[in-house]
């Protein structure tokens, strides 16, 4: 049977005419090979242009959504506080309607560790967070009214407090007609979560906040006022366990304690008011030495540690528990600190194995020239000083992640961020093609090149004709077979 089939197939095949092939088949094959190679290279170039255009557009859109990134901090991979802190331009804080946050403010708080949080003097209305990972500046649309934020920002107290590790922000909000109790808000920059913790007493207006060095406790002090926004009737202080986010203690303070007094809390949750008598939370127990010009306190962690705020032209006074106050005269410091400087402690650096003495970061401010800088005081008598962060004068209510501060940052320089372009152009500015439009042209060119290459390769398939139609045209060439 198979033999019959095979024989039949052979007989059918023997009747087949020998196909015609043109004499230039080789040349056509080589031309076809060249065409396909050119099309392949074109497709590759087009694909690369497409990818590059898409990446450029993506990065441009990302840059437009993110207000600005400090160039030297970006990509370093190490958490740090930038060498310079800049205040975003005023127009970025403009709002369309009263009570709203600026359009550039973000409610996506999953920023990663934050190096610093501050208000911009003047417009305010949205605090600014500076990322510790890439140095990006982010206006924060906190989960409270923008007007309440604006009132707090102009109130003068330290209403923003960044945890020493930069992971959480605490902010104080006064009571209003809507919320009869004051509120302490928490923003977790690692998860993006927010929580509002109301104070225990109605009418408590928290004003000043302080974290314990281990970020376990938040100490707040404020005033107790009537709902009708009447005069202050006294001071109130409270303590929040940040693990459970509950107010564990809130009570009226000693009459000598005012919300303007500096405060600190230890890792064990022991609150301290910085008064001339260095009283504890009850205001009745004297903790240390009397310092005539004391205004600020700090905590190194396990022990109560107090820092005197002093005018540096006089004598900065820094005190560690168990020891006599360490005094350093200004002539022992650098010359550029002579005259007109005042300072506030920003945080303490606990003693390490390499350095037995603790150090302290101060925010030094020169009133006349509106110059601000963060300095690190160290040494046994705090006689050494290093300028670690320069702060633009327009920055107010600065709170720094002190665990991320390092004297090594002094060698770095950070250029001013590339702030986005204001939405309205000047009167002389004509219509211009923005950078995004330029990248879109690249993208369009890539798409065209890819499409052209595809058309070349698939031309015959698209047309639906039999391949090598040119070969079927019998020309004057001779048949090879």
């Amino acid at each position: 049977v198979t033999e019959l089939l095979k024989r039949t197939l052979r007989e059918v095949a023997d009747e087949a005419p020998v196909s015609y092939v043109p004499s230039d088949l080789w040349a056509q094959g080589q031309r076809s090979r060249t065409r396909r190679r050119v099309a392949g290279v074109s497709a590759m170039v087009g694909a690369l242009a497409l990818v590059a255009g898409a990446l450029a557009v993506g990065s441009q859109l990302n840059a437009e959504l993110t207000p600005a990134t400090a160039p030297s901090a970006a990509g370093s991979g190490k958490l740090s506080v930038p060498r310079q802190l800049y205040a975003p331009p005023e127009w970025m804080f403009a709002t369309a309607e009263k009570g709203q946050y600026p359009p550039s403010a973000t409610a996506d708080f999953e920023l990663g560790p934050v190096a610093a949080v501050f208000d911009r003097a003047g417009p305010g209305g949205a605090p600014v967070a500076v990322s510790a990972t890439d140095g990006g500046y982010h206006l924060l649309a906190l989960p409270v009214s923008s007007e309440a934020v604006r009132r707090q920002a102009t109130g003068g107290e330290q209403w923003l407090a960044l945890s020493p590790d930069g992971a959480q922000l605490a902010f104080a909000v006064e009571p209003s007609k809507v919320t009869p109790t004051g509120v302490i808000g928490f923003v977790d920059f690692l998860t993006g979560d927010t929580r509002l913790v109301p104070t225990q007493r109605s009418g408590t207006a928290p004003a000043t906040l302080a974290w314990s060095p281990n970020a376990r406790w938040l100490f707040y002090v404020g005033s107790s006022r009537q709902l009708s926004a009447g005069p202050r009737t006294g001071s109130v202080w409270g303590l929040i366990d940040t693990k459970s986010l509950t107010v564990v203690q809130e009570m009226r303070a000693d009459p000598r304690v005012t919300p303007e007094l500096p405060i600190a809390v230890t890792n064990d949750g022991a609150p301290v008011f910085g008064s001339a008598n260095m009283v504890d939370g009850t205001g009745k127990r004297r903790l240390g030495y009397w310092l005539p010009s004391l205004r600020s306190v700090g905590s190194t962690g396990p022990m109560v540690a107090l820092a005197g705020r002093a005018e540096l032209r006089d004598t900065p006074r820094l005190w560690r528990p168990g020891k006599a106050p360490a005094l350093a005269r200004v002539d022992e410091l650098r010359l550029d600190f002579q005259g007109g400087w005042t300072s506030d402690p920003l945080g303490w650096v606990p003693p390490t194995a390499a350095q037995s003495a603790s150090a302290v970061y101060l925010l030094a401010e020169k009133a006349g020239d509106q110059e601000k800088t963060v300095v690190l005081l160290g040494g046994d008598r705090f006689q050494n000083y290093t300028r670690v962060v320069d702060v633009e004068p327009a920055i107010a209510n600065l709170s720094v992640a002190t665990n991320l501060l390092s004297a090594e940052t002094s060698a770095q320089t950070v250029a001013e961020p590339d702030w986005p372009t204001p939405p309205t152009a000047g009167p002389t500015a004509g219509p211009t093609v923005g950078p995004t439009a330029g990248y879109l042209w690249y993208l369009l060119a890539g798409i065209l090149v890819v499409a052209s290459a595809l058309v070349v390769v698939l031309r015959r398939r698209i047309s639906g004709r039999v391949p090598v139609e040119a070969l079927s045209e019998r020309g004057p060439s001779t048949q090879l077979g």
Partner: protein
Amino acid sequence: MHASAEQEFNNFVKARLPALSRTAYLLTSDAHLAEDLVQTALLATARHWRRIQNNPEAYARKVLYNENISWWRRRQLQEVPLEDRTTWCDPHVELRLTLESALKQLTHKQRTIVVLRYFEDLTEAQTAHVLGISVGTVKSVTRQAFAKLRHCAPELKELLQVGDIL
């Protein structure tokens, strides 16, 4: 080197064109389509000559088989008999003509596999390798092809017992 390659290619075409034409005719059952198929296969052979010059015929035949099936797929041709079955399945014509007519009723894939198996004398495994399909597919398509032949040419029924063929 270029001229030498061209000469080698021309020699190959001269030597193998009749054999390729026969196979193409069996695959397509049409002289014009067979010519297009041969030209396509030889053009592809010329294009890749440097890479396949050690065994150009195997490459040309592979292109032949695969292009035949691709054309059919691409153009979505419908196999429509031009005549009534009782007309072309004339029991009085010669056996060979009957078989030839019946072969035309097969699909391109069925005909390609029949040609490879019974004209080129390839085994099932070799057929599967050339077409890039499984041996099971070769078996099943062959079975379908013979079933169709038996249906179209009942006089060949006793000669096309599946058990004898497969």
